[in-house]
C-alpha cells in the first residue's frame, strides 16, 4: 500500500472530532467508579455509626482534605499520562504536598502524646483491615479509570497504570472515610497511604498489559 493512498483514505470523510473527550471519559469513569465503591461500602461495611457526630470534628475534615487533594493531584497525573507527549510537570510535587502535610501533623501529634498513647495513635483499632478495605473499594474505580485511559492514548504504560491505580486508590479512600472510625493523623498518614499504594502497585504491574494499543 502506498502511503499517499493511506493518507487519502484516512482523510476521506474524517469529519470533526468531538472536543473534550478526555474530560468526558474521566467524568464518566470517576462517576461510575465512585458509585460502585459507594455501593460496595454500603453493602459490605456501612457508614460509621456515629457519622453525623464525626462530621462535626475538625480532624474528619483534615482527613477528607488530605484524601481529596491527593485524589485531585492523581487525577491530573492520570489525565496527563493519557495523552502522548505531556510530561508530569508539577504533579509529583502536588502529590507529595498533602503527604508531607499529614506527616508533619502526625509527627506533631506523636511528639506531644504520652509514650503509652503513641502506639494507639499509630495503629488505631483497624490497622490490619484498613489498607485491604481501601484496596477493595478502589477496585471498581480502577476498572473504570483503565476504561477511560484505553479510550485515550497513554504511551508510558507502567507509569500510566500506576497513576490509574493511585487515582482509584484515592477515590476508594474518599469513599472509605465514610466508614472508617479512625481520625488520628499518624494512622491516616501511614495506613491510608498504604491502602492507596496497593492499587498503585497493581496498576504499575499490569499497566503495560492492560493499556497497550
Amino acid at each position, binding site marked *: 500500500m*502506498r502511503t499517499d493512498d493511506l493518507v487519502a483514505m484516512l482523510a*476521506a*470523510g*474524517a469529519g470533526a472530532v468531538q472536543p473534550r473527550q478526555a474530560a468526558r471519559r474521566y467524568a464518566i469513569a470517576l462517576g461510575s467508579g465512585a458509585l460502585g465503591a459507594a455501593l460496595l461500602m454500603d453493602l459490605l461495611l456501612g457508614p460509621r455509626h456515629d457519622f453525623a457526630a464525626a462530621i462535626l470534628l475538625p480532624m474528619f475534615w483534615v482527613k477528607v482534605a488530605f484524601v481529596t487533594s491527593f485524589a485531585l493531584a492523581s487525577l491530573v497525573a492520570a489525565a496527563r499520562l*493519557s495523552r*502522548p507527549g505531556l510530561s508530569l510537570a508539577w504533579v509529583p510535587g502536588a502529590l507529595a504536598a498533602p503527604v508531607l502535610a499529614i506527616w508533619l501533623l502526625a509527627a506533631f501529634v506523636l511528639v506531644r502524646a504520652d509514650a503509652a498513647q503513641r502506639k494507639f495513635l499509630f495503629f488505631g483499632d483497624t490497622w490490619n483491615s484498613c489498607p485491604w478495605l481501601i484496596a477493595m473499594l478502589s477496585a471498581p474505580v480502577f476498572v473504570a479509570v483503565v476504561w477511560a485511559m484505553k479510550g485515550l*492514548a497513554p504511551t508510558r504504560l507502567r507509569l500510566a497504570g500506576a497513576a490509574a491505580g493511585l487515582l482509584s486508590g484515592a477515590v476508594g479512600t474518599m469513599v472509605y472515610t465514610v466508614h472508617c472510625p479512625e481520625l488520628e493523623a499518624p494512622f491516616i498518614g501511614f495506613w491510608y497511604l498504604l491502602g492507596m499504594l496497593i492499587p498503585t502497585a497493581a496498576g504499575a504491574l499490569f499497566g503495560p498489559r492492560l493499556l497497550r*494499543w
Partner: protein
Amino acid sequence: MQDASRLNAGEERLRNLLILGLAGNESAYHTFLRELSAHLRAFLRRRLVRLPDEVEDLVQESLLAIHNQRHTYDAGQPVTAWIHAIAKYKLVDLLRRRARHEVLNDPLDEEFGITSASDTEASDARTDLKKLLEQLPERQRLPIVHMKLEGLSVAETARLTGMSESAVKVGVHRGLKALAAIIRRNA
C-alpha cells in the same frame, strides 16, 4: 538559530492544519496527514538506520495510530511533541516485537522469506490494505470501503448498506482501530 526558526515554522504550520482538521476541515486534514507522513518518514529513518525496510511500514502504522487517537491532541501542547511521542511508542513496540520474534525464529529465514525488500517505491509499505480489510467484519469493512475508499458520504453509505448512519460512523471508527490492531499483530 535558523534551524530553530524553521522548526518553529513547521510546528506552527502542522499545528494550524491539525486544529482546522479536528474542527472538520477535510482538505486541511488531508494536507496535515501528507506533511505528517514526510515528517514521520524523516523521524523514523533516523532511528531505524539498520532496518530501512521497516521505515515505511512504521510510517503507516504511526499515521493510522495518530489518526485513531487524534482526539488526544491538546491544543495547548506542541504538535511535534504529541506526534513524536506516538511515533516513538510505535517504534519501541516494533523493536520489542522483533526482539521477541527473533528469539523464537531464525532471523535469516525471515530476511529471505515473507519480507522482500521494497526498494522500488520509497513510499510503498509491504502491508496490503485490501487484504487487511478482508479480515474485518462486514459492519466495519463496508463503511470503510464506501466512505474511505470510494468517497461516499455517511448518508449514501447508510443507504447502500442498509445500516443506520450512526452505525456507519461507529463502523469506520472501530474498523480503523481494528486495522491498527491487525497490523500490530502481523508485523
